[in-house]
Structure formats: structure tokens, C-alpha cells
């Protein structure tokens, strides 16, 4: 039985049944392995090589299997084409895929900054509704958040991000860390933000959103444990940019006590202390829902 990420055997895994042609292919592979001359050195010389009469029988059986393979592959191909061909075509039309260096260096490209006028307009719109809004508070908080993300990534533990990440983003971030840990991805590094600036501000009847671009310095190195291969980065120091997007409900106002950037509950003003559900231990308010204060709703690092 396959070990699943969810910790229990899934119904899908239990219910997997190979088609006849797939079983045929598996059997063929097993036959090929059986017929291959043994490379094990612990066998006696007489049991290996062409001198063994069994080897001739193996060769004949393998040849017959190879000759007749199309008879079994054809129905599988046609069946697959009928079942999944159309879906595959549609899927490829909805998923943009790249590979190799293009994927490595194209993934995570940051969106362009707003022009100065649009940025000033956005900031003014937010400030008009919330006079206590201070962009500098957010840029300072973004720099702090980058350090906590560093601690979180290198320890493969989402806990440091709980105090500023929105609930939905935290859920997916934690799941991603679990997937990476399950795949033996080792992340080492140390970096910090050396510059932070607002690059986008948006105010709609539904929400406020602000994007902060950080310039980070340090090193980050991701390796694959079992193979030892470098997946991304290196142990050398370098500089890169990260975009942190903060969002909140359009009804939210900057909390008098400072809110999450000041490590205080935006609801009751008490020092930030969250329970397992992300609720304030003093007032029970869900502080990272973005209803009362800014929370991190998006994080992206440029290719590194």
C-alpha cells in the first residue's frame, strides 16, 4: 500500500485497479527483469550467462513478448486516447507549462510596480477611509515578516508565520512545507530585508490591498536530501527581491493599539497570543482573517 500524505490510505489508492493492458505491461516488465542476465556477483558462474540452458528459453519468451506487445498496447493507446485525449488537450490549453531553465528562472517573476501616480492615488484612497493608515508601518512590518519567513522556511515549520499570514495563505503554506519535507527538500539560509518600498496600493469597495517590495540580502540554498543535488539557490551571498502583499477588509480601520504590526490583537489590543485556531487567547477574535487589520495575503520571491 502506498503511504499517503494525509496519513491514512486514501480511498483512491485503495481502489486503484490496473487495466488489463497495464497489468500486461507490468507483467512484461517483470518478465524482462527475470530474463535479464543476472548482475549479482554472489551467484555461481554456472547459473549466469549464455551457458545456462534456461537463458535460451528466457530469450525466446522475451522475443515472443516483444513481438506481440503491440496487440496489447494498441487497445490501451486507443482507450487512453478516447478517455483522456480530449481532456489532455483541454488541460494543456488551460495550464501554461514550461520546463528546464525557463521554468527555473521564469517561475515567480514579480509583477511590475504601479506607476507613481497610481500608487499615490491608491494610498490616498486608503487614507481617506482610514486616516491612521501609515504606509511606513507596513513596510517595516514587511521587513520583519521576511525574517520570520526565513526562520519558517529553514526550519520547515509554519509557526513563525502564524502571526501575520492570512488564514487561507497560512493553510496552503503549511501544507507546502509538509509536502517539501515529505520530499526531503532541505532549505538552509540566512537573509534579511535591507530595503522596503510600497509598489502598489489598491482600495475597492470590498478590500484594501498594499504590495511591499523588499530587497533581501543573504543566502538561501535548497537541496534534495537523498540525491544531494541543488534544487535552487546556493550557499553564496546574493541579493534578490520579494513582494509581500497585505490585504484587509474595506471596513477595517487601523487599530488604535497598533494591531498586528505592533504584535497586538487588533480586536482587544492585548499582546498577541494566539491559540491553535489562530484566535486571540484574550478575546477569542480570529485576528488573521483580515476583517480588522492588515494580514499577509500573498508572498512571492523573484527567481533566485
Amino acid at each position: 500500500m502506498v503511504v499517503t500524505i494525509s496519513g491514512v490510505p486514501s480511498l483512491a489508492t485503495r481502489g486503484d485497479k490496473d487495466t488489463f493492458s497495464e497489468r500486461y505491461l507490468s507483467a512484461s516488465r517483470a518478465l524482462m527483469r527475470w530474463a535479464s542476465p543476472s548482475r549479482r556477483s554472489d551467484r555461481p558462474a554456472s547459473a549466469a550467462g549464455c551457458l545456462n540452458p534456461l537463458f535460451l528459453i528466457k530469450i525466446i519468451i522475451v522475443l515472443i513478448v516483444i513481438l506481440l506487445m503491440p496487440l496489447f498496447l494498441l487497445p490501451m493507446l486507443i482507450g487512453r486516447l478516447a478517455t483522456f485525449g480530449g481532456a489532455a488537450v483541454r488541460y494543456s490549453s488551460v495550464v501554461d507549462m514550461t520546463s528546464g531553465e525557463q521554468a527555473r528562472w521564469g517561475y515567480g517573476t514579480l509583477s511590475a510596480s504601479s506607476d507613481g501616480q497610481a500608487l499615490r492615488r491608491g494610498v490616498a484612497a486608503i487614507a481617506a477611509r482610514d486616516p491612521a493608515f501609515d504606509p511606513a508601518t507596513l513596510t517595516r512590518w514587511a521587513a520583519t515578516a521576511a525574517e520570520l519567513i526565513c526562520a519558517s522556511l529553514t526550519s520547515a515549520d509554519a509557526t513563525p508565520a502564524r502571526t501575520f499570514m492570512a488564514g487561507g495563505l497560512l493553510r496552503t503554506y503549511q501544507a507546502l512545507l509538509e509536502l517539501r519535507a515529505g520530499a526531503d527538500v532541505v532549505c538552509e539560509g540566512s537573509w534579511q530585508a535591507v530595503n522596503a518600498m510600497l509598489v502598489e496600493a489598491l482600495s475597492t469597495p470590498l478590500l484594501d490591498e498594499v504590495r511591499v517590495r523588499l530587497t533581501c540580502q543573504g543566502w538561501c540554498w535548497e537541496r534534495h536530501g537523498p540525491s544531494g543535488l541543488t534544487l535552487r539557490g546556493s550557499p553564496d551571498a546574493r541579493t534578490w527581491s520579494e513582494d509581500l502583499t497585505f490585504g484587509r477588509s474595506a471596513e477595517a480601520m487601523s487599530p488604535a493599539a497598533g494591531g498586528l504590526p505592533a504584535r497586538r490583537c487588533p480586536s482587544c489590543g492585548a499582546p498577541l497570543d494566539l491559540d491553535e485556531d489562530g484566535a486571540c487567547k484574550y478575546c477569542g477574535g480570529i485576528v488573521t482573517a483580515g476583517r480588522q487589520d492588515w494580514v499577509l495575503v500573498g508572498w512571492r520571491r523573484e527567481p533566485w
Partner: protein
Amino acid sequence: MVTQAALAAGNGAGRAGADALGIFWAVVIASWILLFAATLGLAVVVYGARGRSRRRAAAAGPPPPRLTASPPGLAALMRSDAHFDEQLLLDAALTATLLVFAATTTGDEGPLRRLVTDRFWQTPFGQITSTVARDRRRDSRQAAADAARGSVSKRWIIPLDYHPSVPEIVAVDLNGMQRVSVRVAFGQLQAMVRPGAVDYAAGAAAPNFASAVTSIARSVAVDVGDGQTQAVSWVASGGHYDLKFVRPANARTDPRAALSDRTCTTCGATYRSELAIACAHCGAARAMPWGEWRLAEAVPVR
């Protein structure tokens, strides 16, 4: 006389044997020709269509802009359901995209199955998710079988990164079933570690037939060659989607549900894994914070 009859019978048997052998070879040759034709046709259709769709995508322009007003129907939904929490549905959308990534990387559909309707698996997106996940499970079984024979698998597909955009509700339909569309974009990055990884990855993302054939042929050549030298390559994918969530017409939000997925509702134990679908302590099924909302379809936005 007897000798002549025996010779005739022998000749007859010989002819029959030759005929049978001739038929056998005819069947074998015809089947190989058919196989090549079918493979070529399949590849041309798939990669031709992929190339066309990519050209269309490239011509489609930038992603759709953010909404600046509530979608029609959202106010009515909030009136009819006093505890409706828009944020929970947006969280469900983010979680769904991550779980698709998890399923197609690890093969485990368990967490995703909790969040989607049965109908989801009949949609193009669901079919492909299911197919890729099934292939991953087959890889895992093969690796386990190899390990049992004492040989260590040298092929890995590694979930490296995942970035969702900020989701938003774009449509609400309360006629019959309650339907809400959530627009979200996401990108995902996988690393491939195996002999011939570069060509293998290039084959997986090949934009046309020629590059697919070249890449696959090279990766097979590496496999057949030394087959030992490990290499790493990457595959990135992503897109914009409208995730269509549904729930029964009479369903309403349970305000306690939002807090019910961090701790087991049966024994109170804390879930340590975001991907766990059952309590590790008592085995009870994990409750879902978004109540009865289920993902029915994922439609690309162009």
C-alpha cells in the same frame, strides 16, 4: 502406398504450419504498423492541440483585472445566510488549488476528495488530476517494489514551490443549488531528479510534436545508456481559474465550523498536519471549516 500417404500428410502438416507461421508474422507486422500509426496520430493530435492552445493563450493578453464591486447575488447570499463567511470560501479556493498540486505531485487524492463533488472528477480538470495522481501512485508502487528487491529508486518528482494569487468571488447564483465562483491564479514549481531529467522535463512540457519526440528520445537514450547519473530539472505550470463551488439550496453556514478543523471534534486532539484528513489520535474524520461548500469544477479564465 502407405509411404505416399504419410508423405502427403507430412506435406499437409508442413503447409499448415507454414500458413500459421505466415499468419502469425502478418499479424505481428500489421500490429506493429498499427501501433506506430496510432502512437504517431496520438502524439500529433495532443501536441498539435497543445501548440494551438498555447498560441491562443499567448494572444489572449493579460490576466483579468480585479473586481471593484461586489458580484451580483453576493448581498442576497449574505441576507439568506446570516453566518455566511466570504473569507472561508476564499480559503477553500486556496486550499483546493494546493491540494490539486499535492495530488499531482504525491498521488494522494485523499485530502482533495474531501473538498470536491463527485462530478468534479468527470470534468477535464478533474480527469487530468486523477490521471496524473494515479500515475504518481504507480511510480510509488514501482519504487516500493524496487526497494523490496534491494534497488534504490533514483527518480523523484519534488514539490518545490507554490504561489497562489489573492482569490476573489466573481459570481453568485442562487437559483436551485447555491453556486459561487471564486477566481484565483496559481503557479507551481516541481523539480525532477532522475537520469536524463532535463530531457524528461522538456518532454513533459513540450510545446510541439517535434520537441516532444526529441526530448523523449533523448531521455530514453539516457535511460538505456548509463542510467545512473542523476540530474535535476524543473517544470513550472500555472494559470487563472474560476473555481465553482456548490452547496445544497437549503444549506446554511454553521458558525462553529470555522474553528472545527484545527482540533478533532471527537477527542479534542490538535491536528499537526494541514493535509491530515482524519484524527491521528482517534481516527475520526476531520471536519471542514467551509461546511457544505464543495468544488464542482475548475474552469480556465482567458
